[in-house]
């Protein structure tokens, strides 16, 4: 009898241990994301590096007023609804009433008003608040933002990009760039800051149980630095990673879900239109005819991309003009146009005033997301221009040197690239003319020779009527493509793959995250409000139920054991 009793007690203890571990394993669900660079700064608004990945790491902790998902934007986030008051030239946002900061303090309208005041005093790289006059908290959950003039991109540019800061923490912060205290990481997003290692390039976040849109479907989110993200994904070390274009089919065969990004990033040819003969529209059009965009896609991207629109805005954007002028590859037409400018064909080279037509082409090694990578664009452009009688001096320089030369207009042609061409059409304004008061950008053409274009660009920035704004955007693209302040070459297709068994359905955000970041790491995918609502809801349910089931089983066993012992 004693033996039976001892065996049963031992069995009960074993059962208890197993069940407890099952319970803890079921409740600790983590997602790992691979990243090559690792360090993108602390995940706090002023400390994260001013590049897409830096913002993405910050957005898990800090919410904005509005947001975007796979198909729509703006959609409610901290603001449940909003309105533009034309008479007062102001936006009114009604905030959700159950939102809390990570330290438990409720989020109110005064936090939003404070954020605007604070960011006007301490400029934040992602948001320009020159157009905002002031913000007032009308009541506890209503904030009114007064504009100093009509500003059409407001919702995407400020509403959907400006992280809201907790007033009770930040009101005493004099220098936000030096503020690395724990308070710098108290936000309103679905995840709380847990750890960041600059040396190892790792980030760790923990789910915020009291998140106003519901508890996230995972408990931990971790960013891991790895030299080969694709390999890390194949080995099961991470759940989401960028993959090489050629590996798409192989990854699909291995059971991963591959998502192709929208074409919101373009490689483009910067043109020094202050210099002869590049100051002539006809010559720039000749260049466009001489450039074979398809060859760039075939050779430089090996087919994984598409030719860019000459109107800059991505052809996949809702803002794309349906009738942008096109320049199909036609070297003969290019030669004709160059000849019409007084050049003579001499033994394969155009000559004017006994001097050959020679252009210097600067190439830098900008790759995906601004990371350095050697590419073949310079060689291809060199070949294409030489075919139409233009001598090319191809110079490969450090990215910063190319940028500097372009900013100082010390160049003829330069190959450069930037994203954001799928988000708000403000990008057309920013990349065509110099935004007053801003630093010169190496991707901006700084072209203001066309009154007609300036007028349309002004319209797209200040026209508050949606249909009239769309018209101005279309017209601006058409004129841009006709005058060619810069020539867009191609848009690469980027791929990410994820493990479907991890239970998160990642997606690319329409127009890109915030101001247009083309990275499929939208926080909505982790709170079940994104594309995979049904799956994630099911997961959440399963996660909530499984510990209860395990616990019930253990309790039942223990009751049975107790009952047996009592009987014997």
């Amino acid at each position, binding site marked *: 009898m004693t033996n039976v009793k001892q065996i049963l007690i031992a069995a009960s203890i074993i059962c208890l241990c197993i069940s407890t571990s099952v319970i803890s394993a079921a409740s600790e669900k983590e997602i790992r994301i691979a990243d090559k660079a690792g360090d993108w700064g602390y995940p706090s608004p002023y400390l994260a590096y001013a590049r897409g990945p830096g913002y993405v790491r910050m957005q898990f902790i800090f919410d904005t007023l509005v947001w975007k998902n796979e198909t729509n934007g703006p959609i409610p986030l901290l603001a449940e609804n909003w309105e533009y008051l034309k008479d007062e030239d102001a936006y009114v946002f009604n905030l959700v009433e159950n939102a809390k900061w990570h330290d438990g303090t409720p989020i109110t309208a005064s936090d939003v008003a404070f954020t605007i005041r604070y960011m006007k005093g301490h400029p934040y790289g992602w948001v320009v608040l020159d157009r905002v006059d002031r913000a007032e908290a009308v009541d506890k959950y209503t904030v009114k933002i007064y504009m100093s003039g009509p500003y059409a991109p407001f919702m995407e540019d400020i509403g959907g990009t400006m992280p809201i800061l907790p007033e009770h923490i930040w009101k005493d912060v004099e220098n936000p760039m030096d503020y690395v205290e724990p308070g710098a990481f108290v936000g309103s997003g679905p995840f709380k800051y847990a750890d960041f290692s600059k040396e190892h390039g790792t980030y760790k976040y923990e789910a915020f149980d009291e998140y106003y849109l519901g508890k996230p479907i995972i408990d931990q989110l971790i960013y891991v630095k790895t030299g080969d993200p*694709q390999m890390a994904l194949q080995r099961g070390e991470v759940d989401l990673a960028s993959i090489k274009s050629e590996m798409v089919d192989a990854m699909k065969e291995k059971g991963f879900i591959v998502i192709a990004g929208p074409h919101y990033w373009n490689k483009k040819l910067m043109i020094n239109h202050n210099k002869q003969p590049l100051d002539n529209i006809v010559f720039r059009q000749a260049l466009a005819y001489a450039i074979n965009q398809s060859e760039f896609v075939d*050779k430089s991207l*090996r087919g994984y991309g598409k030719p860019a629109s000459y109107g800059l805005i991505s052809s996949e954007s809702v803002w794309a003009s349906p009738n942008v002028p096109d320049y199909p590859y036609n070297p003969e037409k290019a030669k004709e146009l160059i000849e019409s400018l007084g050049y003579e064909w001499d033994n394969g080279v155009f000559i004017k005033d006994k001097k050959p037509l020679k252009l210097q082409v600067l190439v830098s090694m900008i790759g995906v997301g601004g990371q350095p990578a*050697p590419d*073949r664009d310079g*060689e*291809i452009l060199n*070949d294409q221009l030489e075919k139409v009688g233009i001598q090319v001096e*191809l110079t490969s320089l450090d990215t910063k*040197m190319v940028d500097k030369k372009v900013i100082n207009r010390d160049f003829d042609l330069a190959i450069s690239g930037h994203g954001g061409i799928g988000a708000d059409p403000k990008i057309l304004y920013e990349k065509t003319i110099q935004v007053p008061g801003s630093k010169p950008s190496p991707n901006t053409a700084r072209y203001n020779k066309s009154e007609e274009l300036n007028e349309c660009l002004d319209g797209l920035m200040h026209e508050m009527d949606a249909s009239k704004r769309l018209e101005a955007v279309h017209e601006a693209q058409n004129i841009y493509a006709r005058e060619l302040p810069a020539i867009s070459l191609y848009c690469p297709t980027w791929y990410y793959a994820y493990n479907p068994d991890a239970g998160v359905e990642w997606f690319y955000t329409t127009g890109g995250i915030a101001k247009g970041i083309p990275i499929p790491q939208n926080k909505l995918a982790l709170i079940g409000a994104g594309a995979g609502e049904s799956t994630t809801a099911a997961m959440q349910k399963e996660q909530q139920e499984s510990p209860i089931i395990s616990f019930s089983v253990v309790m039942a066993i223990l009751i049975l054991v107790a009952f047996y012992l009592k009987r014997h």
Partner: protein
Amino acid sequence: MCLYFPICQEFKRNRIGVTGLVMFLLLSTTAILAPIIAPHDPWDYSDRSFQSPSMNHLLGTNDIGYDIFSELLWALRTSVFFGVSVAAIACTIGLILGVSTALIGGLYDLVVMRIVDALLAIPSILVLILIAAYFRPSTMILVITLSLIIWQTIARGIRAQTLSLKTKLHIKAARNMGASTGYIMRKHIIPELFPLYAMGFVTKARIAVFMEAGLSFLGIFDPTTKSLGIMMSYAMRYLYLDVWFNWLLPAVLSLSMLIVSLALISYAIEEIFDPRLREDNAATV
């Protein structure tokens, strides 16, 4: 009899040296004949990308469609040209300055030797990276630049040897018999210094080949130049496609063989002229 005849005989008997020389000659001949033996234009990218090795493309094609074999031959040509040119210029400068400082002496010797000291303190690779990255000079200018910053060790060695030679009886005898400085340099000193500048030549050629490959690997050379470093840099990007055996490996092997051949020659020369290093003496030392 030629002064160099015994040296040649000695070299012939040195198996390491002969192996190095044969390897170097083979690679150099291939490089020189590249325009003739390359089956395709190495700048023609009209072929399909990533073709496997075939009779038409011996090593297949790369990411853009270049024939890898033809590109390899032309890249080898760049490496050999760079190595030999830099070594030739650096040796000439080193020889002239080394001998002249030893023979003339005085303030001239002092100034040149201080320049040598200063140059010895500067890491040549950094200077070359900075010049290449910021000024983007042509290949020829880079050859001259590198030569101008790596001649100092040759000059110093030659100066020391010349100072020693100057005191030898046969030189003194020649001088007493009325021979001019130029005559002594031409007929006695330069031929007798052969081991030193032969060594210097090979060593500098090896450094130059390595530097050229390294700098082009970093992407700070003209991207249209065919170079083993550029080839390796691109091949590394596509390792996941299993192209290492027909793209990366041939480039790495060619570069290694070129450097090893030069190293073997330099080792052999050193062995011939430094009796302490000879195998038959090694046992008795």
